[in-house]
């Protein structure tokens, strides 16, 4: 026996079996003890509860939902809400963050001062505190009757922000979104696939332009076709009794999350963008100036594209991290994926199954986000002879 253990291969096998076995034993122990606990409460494990109706409603959902609908549907509602919040907050954070990053490398001391103050203020305070702060400010706005009127188009009140909207059915909006995803997929295919590698670059640009133009035309056509009959295409909010009618209501919960996450994210993205600009060598813009390009042209055609490419891998991690942070929405009562799961756990008691769905959902979202962004990175990154510093 001891002689056998003196062989390295045997010892290695014992270590590995021991390690993996211990982890498996831990999982089995959890599962067994969970089952006995559930049986003591009279609950059956399994995913059958997904078809039961919930009996409770949600305050915000992109698809139709009422309390007779099933758990499966409420989970879809939460997932869609999370994706919705993530898409808006991440895009705003990118725009604002790029602006802040550009200000910090602009060479103008006053702009640098503003950028630095922004980054240091919002990066050094927890996101949760910022979301609480914006939520408190938004709910402390006056009642709808005394709401703040911005040009008769936008109204600010403690019940939410009212914006003008389009009278278009949800199906059409969904189709526009699906078309957007499909166009993005086709564009990435065109950029990456080997079968288009020999296409002339000018033709490639033309094809991709017509691809995007096609999407815009399709979107306009879909929105026109999907408008709700008997109403104007555009709907404006107006005061009716104690509240507003018409328009789109953005709840304080959603808005606090959007504002908080985009500002917090912008502070981080601004730092990343700044690092990207610093990574572009001074020779690049000097060469641009030598060729007679203006400062603006050098910036938009040379420095910005190179900086974005330099920081794309870091940005991808940042996006995944920011998306995970949308879960703070639960603190102010925004119905996101995490909140739906935790309410379902309270109501149905199917703890393990719901936790498994939560983990599966986040793994799926994060991996697909990282996958898509990595494909974008592959499509735009510099290859071979394009590499210069």
């Amino acid at each position, binding site marked *: 026996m001891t002689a056998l253990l003196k062989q390295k291969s045997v010892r*290695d096998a014992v*270590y*590995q079996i021991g*390690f*993996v076995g211990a*982890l498996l034993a831990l999982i089995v*122990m*959890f*599962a067994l*003890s*969970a089952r006995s*606990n*559930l049986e003591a409460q009279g609950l059956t494990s399994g995913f059958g509860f997904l078809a039961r109706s919930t009996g409770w409603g949600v305050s915000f959902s992109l698809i139709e939902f009422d309390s007779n609908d099933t758990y499966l549907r409420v989970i879809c509602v939460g997932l869609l809400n999370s994706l919705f919040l993530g898409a808006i907050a991440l895009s705003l954070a990118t725009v604002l963050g790029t602006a802040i990053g550009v200000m910090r490398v*602009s*060479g*103008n*001391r*006053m*702009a640098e*001062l*503003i950028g630095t103050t922004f980054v*240091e*203020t919002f990066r*050094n*305070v*927890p*996101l*949760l*505190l910022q979301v*609480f*702060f914006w939520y*408190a*400010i938004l709910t*402390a706005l006056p009642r709808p009757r005394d709401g703040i009127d911005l040009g008769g188009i936008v109204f600010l009140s403690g019940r939410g922000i009212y914006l003008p909207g389009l009278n278009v059915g949800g199906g059409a909006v969904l189709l526009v979104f699906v078309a957007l995803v499909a166009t993005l997929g086709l564009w990435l295919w065109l950029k990456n696939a080997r079968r288009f590698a020999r296409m002339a670059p000018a033709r490639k640009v033309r094809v991709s332009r017509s691809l995007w133009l096609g999407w815009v035309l399709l979107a306009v056509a879909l929105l026109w076709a999907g408008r709700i009959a008997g109403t104007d295409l555009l709907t404006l909010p107006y005061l009716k009794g104690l509240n507003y009618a018409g328009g789109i209501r953005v709840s304080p919960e959603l808005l606090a999350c959007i504002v908080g996450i985009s500002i917090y994210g912008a502070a981080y993205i601004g730092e990343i963008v700044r690092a990207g600009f610093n990574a572009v060598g001074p020779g690049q813009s000097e060469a641009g100036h030598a060729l007679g390009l203006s*400062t603006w042209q050098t910036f938009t055609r040379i420095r910005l594209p190179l900086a974005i490419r330099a920081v794309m891998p870091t940005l991808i991690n940042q996006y*995944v991290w920011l998306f*995970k*942070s949308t*879960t*703070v929405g*639960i*603190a102010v009562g925004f119905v996101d994926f*995490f909140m739906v799961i*935790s309410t379902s*756990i309270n109501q149905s008691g199917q*703890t*393990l199954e719901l*936790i498994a769905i*939560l*983990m599966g959902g*986040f*793994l799926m979202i*994060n*991996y697909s986000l990282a996958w898509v962004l990595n494909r974008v990175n592959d499509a735009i990154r510099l290859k071979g002879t394009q590499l210069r510093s």
Partner: protein
Amino acid sequence: MARTYHPPTALQRIRRGYFSNRLDTAMTLGFGAFVAWALWSLADWGIVNAVWSAENREACGHGAEGACWAVIDARWRLILFGLYPFEEQWRSALACVVMVLVGGLSCLPPFWSARRIAALWIGGFAAFYILMRGGFFGLPEVFEQNWGGLSLTLFIFASVTLLGMPLAVVFALLRRSDLPWIARTMGLVIDTIRSLPLLSIMFTFAIVLPFVLPGWLTGDKLYRVIVGYALFFACYQAEILRGGMQALPAGQEEAAKALGMSYWHRIGHIVLPQTFRNALPPTINQLVITFKETSLVAIIGFFEVLASGNAAYGTSEWNFAHVEVYCFVALIYFVFVFALSRYGAYLERRMAVASR
């Protein structure tokens, strides 16, 4: 004739930084006006028109022009100490001072050895725990349910770091193990935990774990959350350490092997010291994030400094003063986080000089 270099005068520097061309001048004036307006309204609100003392709280409320710092004057004990018994709050304050002192001392080079830093942190942590919990030396006992405010934030941060750092070393070593099954399984575990939100991990440990653990292992809710957070921290930190290990030249470990050093000697004397040095800037960054995200325990129902801030303006007497309270709590976080991140930046510069 050799030209001598003249450093630019102050006037030249100002001209280059603010007014180098027409666009630059326009930007300076526009942004300058914005900064002046922002500073003026901030000072007007926060200093000139502010109410400072709780005695004249009638002066603030709806329609007041300035900030109502009276709420801080009246409620600072609640924000800093939570529900800790009033007569014992000096202990909570002293415990915070001890923890800050430990943090400050570990920034000094004389403490940068594994043994000393471990002794410092374990000693400081024990002092903190004895002060907070009591039951020794004639101090009355105060249970964890009554802990709150800044000392709870510091307690969670310190225990997560203390628990997570050794765990991170173990995870990183397991992940780079030569044995494929161990390395792959550990990689799977780390990647899975890293792709989950911290909040869901805290929630799982606080609410769900009692279901799946046998009763004798359950423990207090606070400690379960800390263990969950430490696990999350360890997974992130393990990846940072792995990055630091990969930056080591392979020759280092091969030379140690050639000299006949055992695995533990190689790791303890060759690999880990250099790894920590390589990984110091991202580690500080991770500590900064960890400190900020202790605020998430407020959602799970703990009374740390953010939650006690919420409670401070939660009464009908002060319900208008949310901005002032959040500014105060933000300032507390800012002081800690800013100091830590500046220290990280200083270390990075110092190391850049050293490796030149």
